């Protein structure tokens, strides 16, 4: 799952934007024509500095989101109700880690090493999808994540898989294929609670109420406030605007929630039949930025667990290391 629908801005953005000026105009024109023809860009191709940088940021954040996203769900493997749910959850968590690996590889083809990416995650420099800074308190939270967060991620990933960078598209193709199982098992578990005992229904409604805000945040701030880069759209790095993706998500999934007799904690949420767009109350964007910048309930724990894993896995990595090896980047 989990392509954070939103690429976070980094503070040192400005300096690199200026580098773009030095890009060669003839090569840039050929590059843009290639994208306009619908052709993919491959790792060895010339590309503008800004294209490379934005892609690294996008793919790297996507990779971190897969790895960190496995943590709140992994918590529930030992407590998943029943053997089948446990098997499905183990398979899903394994898939997410696999997706992280595929995405790190795709980002590496652009010239940033795996170690640099992990270091930037651990130091807090590099972000991951904001939804994983919230806790999974009950089994119902796991079903809400498995159904709705995965669904939101699929909207984002299907869009991105039509982007311009070959290795990222190939990774996403594989990821989307596996996601269809995640979404289906999440929906199945969600329906089971929604149509179950009153206690189960209540547990699900409670989880839904708590997750609605992070879900509304998933695709990032509204188009009118976020720095909307036409260049990124033209280069097919960003494939759809935050609001368009959010609208597509609401259009498909709100009816699937309502049909089960569940409610959503926003009385203003409705579809404007004239415009075809969903309308909703402000989902508290201040909280969104507060949580991104470390103020969420789980930010610290997530990074601490990752640090613990790196620290305690080091001796295994070292024991297996072949000192004669030299580092190389993936070729495709």
């Amino acid at each position: 799952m989990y392509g954070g629908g939103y690429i976070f801005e980094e503070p040192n953005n400005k300096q690199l934007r200026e580098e773009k000026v030095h890009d060669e105009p003839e090569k840039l024109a050929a590059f843009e024509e290639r994208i306009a023809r619908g052709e993919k860009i491959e790792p060895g191709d010339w590309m503008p500095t800004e294209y490379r940088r934005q892609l690294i940021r996008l793919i790297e954040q996507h990779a971190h989101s897969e790895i960190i996203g496995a943590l709140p769900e992994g918590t529930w493997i030992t407590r998943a109700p029943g053997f089948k749910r446990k098997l499905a959850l183990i398979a899903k968590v394994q898939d997410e880690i696999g997706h992280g690996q595929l995405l790190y590889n795709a980002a590496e083809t652009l010239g940033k090493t795996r170690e640099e990416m992990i270091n930037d995650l651990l130091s807090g420099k590099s972000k991951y999808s904001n939804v994983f800074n919230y806790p999974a308190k009950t089994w119902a939270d796991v079903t809400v994540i498995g159904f709705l967060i995965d669904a939101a991620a699929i909207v984002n990933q299907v869009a991105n898989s039509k982007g311009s960078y070959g290795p990222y598209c190939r990774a996403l193709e594989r990821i989307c294929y596996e996601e269809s199982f995640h979404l289906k098992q999440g929906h199945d578990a969600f329906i089971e609670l929604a149509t179950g005992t009153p206690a189960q229904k209540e547990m699900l409604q409670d989880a839904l109420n708590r997750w609605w805000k992070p879900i509304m945040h998933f695709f990032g701030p509204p188009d009118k406030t976020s720095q909307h880069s036409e260049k990124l759209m033209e280069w097919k790095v960003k494939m759809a605007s935050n609001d368009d993706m959010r609208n597509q998500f609401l259009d498909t999934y709100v009816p699937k929630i309502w049909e089960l007799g569940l409610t959503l904690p926003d009385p203003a949420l409705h579809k404007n039949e004239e415009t075809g767009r969903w309308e909703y109350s402000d989902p508290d964007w201040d909280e969104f930025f507060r949580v991104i910048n470390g103020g969420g309930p789980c930010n610290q724990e997530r990074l601490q667990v990752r640090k613990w894993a790196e620290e305690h896995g080091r001796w295994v990595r070292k024991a297996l290391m072949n000192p004669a090896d030299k580092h190389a980047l993936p070729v495709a």
Partner: protein
Amino acid sequence: MSLDPRVNRLKLGDPTAVIKVEAGENWNVYEVFHQEKRGAHHEHVGCVHAPDPQMALIFAKEQFGRRKKCVNLWVVKSADILAFDSEDEDMFANNMEKTYRDASGFKVMEKINKFKQSKGATNHVK
């Protein structure tokens, strides 16, 4: 306190501690080729990080052999792959006139029919 009892048992370290992965600590890159069934080509599916070819095969099995059908995998160090520069793509551009190396460039039926209609055809052929 974490909601995860296992996390609580870990005794997580100081949250401000700086943990740094050294360059090369995540090993090297191997390209992975997947054979879906006997008789099919091995196809490139992606890559894995591994300390040596044996471990690369084990990781490749986990990463690329856990779902779809798979009967065999190859791994090869990415650095050992020799490829053309993608900037030289134009050298593969086709010469316009290449029917001489194409099955469709040879029209035998026309000649056979012409021969049959001519006096050259014998009586055994109806």
